């Protein structure tokens, strides 16, 4: 009785929140799942039934293994549980196999590995000191933060409906951030190194990690004005950091180096053959660029400035093919996107070096890196916005400005995930869950910062409210109009352009707030 009471009792709200969301995840098991489900089933089969030397060469299914080795090992470990559920799913030739037991196993594997995410959120809540507020539980920053993270709409639909393993990967990232806050830098660095070898998309935020560790860990002291004290450099720390990264990489890539397969592994990890934009444009700079190009080409055709015969057919009829050709504006190469991304990241990284503000500054830089690469990266997935949304939650309970940026970024970012779920039975779920998360996040943060100036200007409010009509138009009006057959891409195009505006705005606003923030050395008494 007492144990039951403690386990679920009134004071232990965190476990109630975590259990609640876990149960919700269980309810989502029968929902639609995307081809990513088959991707992961195939990886289970590859790692289970083939020798290591074959892992990155196997190509029976079109969904070849294109994550770093740790993830392959992760699938290998999972496959040893999977064989007790259904041996058939571990057969490489069993394409598109999805028995009910396979479904149960795969869904539960995501739910169980999310335990790491829950633990990471728990650690984050311990070390984030948000704004001091009312005594009421629901108004405490820790409570709000854990809801924002645990019940994150994006994670729920991407992991538990669409099907991916972002939960425990984000958990690793949050845990490494929490370790930095707890001054356990080595552990944080180790966790991030491991994370990189799970999913290489986290390379986007690697600059923030590198510069922060170098500046605030390897240099042990600052001058009184906050600038760097060159003679405080600690070689021991640098070498131990280097050793950690080296050992983790050796463990991950070593076997493939020994097999002389590294080039093959890398060619799988970085496929530049894909187009600039994903099938559905992620709401970033390139979406705006492509939309502008489309508008210009239409205007050009109307004014007879362009020759219709010279325009590539695909771009006019669907606009959603993999290889997208711009008609008026110059086409973009991978190198150009790479340079743009670097340029966009540089100021934030410089800021981290010259105005170190402890782990909080690092967190801002990390978010900026994630957002910059989302804005300018090559073949960005809309899901990558979670990379910025989750760490931004940590900032949101601290300052009103950050809360406002967080809300704009999250709401538009989450809305841009809507096209991931296009089946009718999931329509109510995504709308209700989105409403749930959005009303909660906006209202709770408003309550938290009710004594400061309003979180949104009228323009921001107007923009966010505009998402409602946009959803109504895209999903309830447009399919019944005659344009549905002629221009089926219009809802997606509208969604990504509309969201791109919001995300660009949030990115710029965050940049401005980071760059104009006074350096911590001058404000703090130390």
């Amino acid at each position, binding site marked *: 009785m007492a144990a039951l009471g403690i386990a679920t009792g009134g004071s232990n709200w965190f476990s109630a929140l975590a259990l609640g969301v876990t*149960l919700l995840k269980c*309810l989502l098991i029968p929902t639609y799942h995307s081809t990513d489900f088959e991707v992961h089933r195939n990886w289970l089969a590859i790692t289970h039934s083939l020798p290591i030397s074959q892992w990155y060469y196997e190509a029976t299914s079109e969904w070849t293994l294109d994550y770093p080795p740790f993830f392959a090992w992760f699938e290998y470990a999972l496959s040893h549980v999977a064989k007790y559920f259904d041996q058939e799913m571990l057969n490489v030739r069993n394409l598109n196999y999805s028995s009910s037991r396979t479904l149960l196993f795969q869904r539960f594997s995501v739910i169980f590995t999310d335990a790491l995410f829950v633990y990471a959120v728990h650690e984050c809540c311990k070390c984030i000191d948000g704004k001091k507020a009312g005594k009421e539980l629901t108004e405490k920053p820790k409570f709000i933060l854990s809801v924002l993270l645990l019940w994150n709409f994006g994670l729920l639909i991407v992991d538990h409906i669409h099907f991916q393993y972002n939960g425990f990967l984000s958990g690793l990232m949050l845990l490494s951030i929490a370790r930095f806050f707890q001054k356990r830098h080595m552990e944080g660095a180790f966790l991030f190194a491991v994370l990189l070898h799970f999913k290489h998309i986290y390379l986007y935020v690697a600059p923030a990690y590198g510069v922060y560790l170098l500046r605030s860990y390897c240099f042990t002291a600052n001058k009184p004005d906050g600038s760097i004290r060159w003679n405080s450099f600690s070689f021991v720390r640098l070498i131990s950091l280097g050793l950690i990264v080296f050992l983790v990489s050796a463990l991950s890539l070593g076997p493939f180096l020994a097999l002389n397969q590294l080039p093959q592994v890398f060619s799988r990890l970085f496929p530049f053959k894909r187009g600039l934009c994903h099938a559905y444009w992620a709401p970033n700079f390139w979406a705006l660029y492509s939309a502008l190009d489309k508008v210009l080409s239409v205007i050009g055709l109307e004014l007879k400035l362009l020759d219709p015969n010279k325009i590539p057919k695909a771009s006019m009829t669907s606009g959603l093919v993999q290889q997208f050709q711009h008609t008026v504006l110059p086409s973009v190469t991978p190198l150009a996107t790479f340079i743009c991304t670097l340029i966009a990241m540089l100021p934030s990284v410089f800021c981290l070096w010259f105005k170190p503000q402890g782990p909080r500054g690092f967190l801002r830089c990390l978010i900026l890196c994630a957002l910059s690469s989302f804005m300018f990266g090559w073949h960005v997935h809309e899901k990558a916005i979670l990379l910025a949304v989750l760490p931004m939650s940590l900032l949101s309970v601290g300052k009103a400005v950050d809360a406002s940026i967080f809300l704009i970024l999250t709401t538009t970012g989450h809305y841009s995930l809507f096209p991931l779920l296009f089946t009718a*039975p999931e329509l*109510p779920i995504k709308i209700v869950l989105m409403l749930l998360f959005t*009303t*909660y996040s906006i*209202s709770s943060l408003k309550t938290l910062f009710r004594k400061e100036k309003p979180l949104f200007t009228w323009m921001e409010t107007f923009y966010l409210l505009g998402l409602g009509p946009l959803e109504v138009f895209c999903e309830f009006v447009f399919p019944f109009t005659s344009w549905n057959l002629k221009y089926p891409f219009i809802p997606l195009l509208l969604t990504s352009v509309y969201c791109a505006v919001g995300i660009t705005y949030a990115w710029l606003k965050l940049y401005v707030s980071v760059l104009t923030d006074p350096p911590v050395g001058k404000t703090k008494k130390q």
Partner: protein
Amino acid sequence: MEKWYLMTAAVLLGLTVRWTVSLNSYSGAGKPPMFGDYEAQRHWQEITFNLPIKQWYFNSSDNNLQYWGLDYPPLTAYHSFLCAYVAKFINPDWIALHTSRGYESQAHKLFMRATVLIADLLIYIPAVVLYCCCLKEISTKKKIASALCILLYPGLILIDYGHFQYNSVSLGFALWGVLGVSYDWDLLGSLAFCLAINYKQMELYHSLPFFCFLLGKCFKKGLKGKGLVLLIKLACTVVASFVLCWLPFFTEREQTLQVLRRLFPVDRGLFEDKVANIWCSFSVFLKIRDILPHHIQIMISFCFTFLSLLPACIKLTLHPSPKGFRFTLVSCALSFFLFSFQVHEKSILLVSLPVCLVLSEIPFMSTWFLLVSTFSMLPLLLKDELLMPSVVTVMAFFIACATSFSIFEKTSEEELQLKCFSTSVRKYFTCFTFLPRIIQHLFLLSVITMILLTMMTVTLDPPQKLPDLFSVLVCFVSCLHFLFFLVYFNIIIMWDSKNGRSQKKIN
């Protein structure tokens, strides 16, 4: 209300759970020739849309009453007609006469589920929210917590969105009735309750408390002055609403009689399938259904029901109070469920609704009852392949109740509302102080039994001689629980009014 956003979150959470449960299987999915309640509802749409209103309740070549004939009151039929109209607009095949029999498709399932959600959203959920907002003497936080818990009650969700029925409509109307009557909008309240009865005749389980409460109110105002006026007004409202609902069937005597025959099929036997009531549990030892003649069965069940609900009803008539009304609703519905004739396992929802209403007053016992009520439907839920959503929603409901009401700290005599009872018992047995502890142990025992029985039912194969062993066990255990709860609620009712009288004396 400053924390309206938490209330919104509670409602949205309830909606999410409802819709995710609805993605699961429904009763009789892919099981010809009879299918299940899902097909029944679809068939009613077919019948009401294609046949003239005169033929709805009659057997004919177009309307085989043996195959899911309409056996609910007119409002259900009108609702089916309305749904059929929308269905025709989307896809006429869904309701085509004869040819649509056993129609199943993903799109149709989506449509049917959506009709349930819309009805729920229009009737039941607003009533719950309003009821919780109007609760007196508790903090905003508790109001939101009780709304969340009521909306998460797994029994109703699983039957409406899993098994497939429209209980939220009749229960929602009944709840509107409770709201109206409790806050002195007597006419609107009785109108809402008449609608509830005309949607499902099972709502008659609630009718006695309504009647007694309103009668008591009239008595209180004085039967010669205002009370008489109120009584006449009430009578007119009730008659008018019934006449309106039944208008098409009042044209001929035979029509009315036929509808009544369909609504109260007395020849169908004392109980059907496995129900957690006295008769079904008792027939484990003695097959009353086969031994006693039919009319004696009816008499016995009538007498038992009447006797068991009499004390509570008399108390309510003499001392009408909203609180007493809610508890009497519970005990009357429970008496009907346990003793009356032709009870379905789903009728336990009629008891659960008033128990939900007293959730904030006696959180521990209500949570316990609501858990047992869901457990009692286990055989049905398993038949519909709803094991997974059942387990998950029950756990979610338990966590919600345990966290928001910290039920385990609320087991003192005071919080179980047993203070007066134990004081009066202590006059005779001075050592009567162990009641809370016993109840705690009983709770633990009951939870363990329920978990074990669930696991056994799911994993073990019953012995060949006794194929229904586990479902009978489930019913038997639940029935014991319900008897215990009947005693408990009657104790509260009896000793509470005594308390009220003594308080009045002090005043």
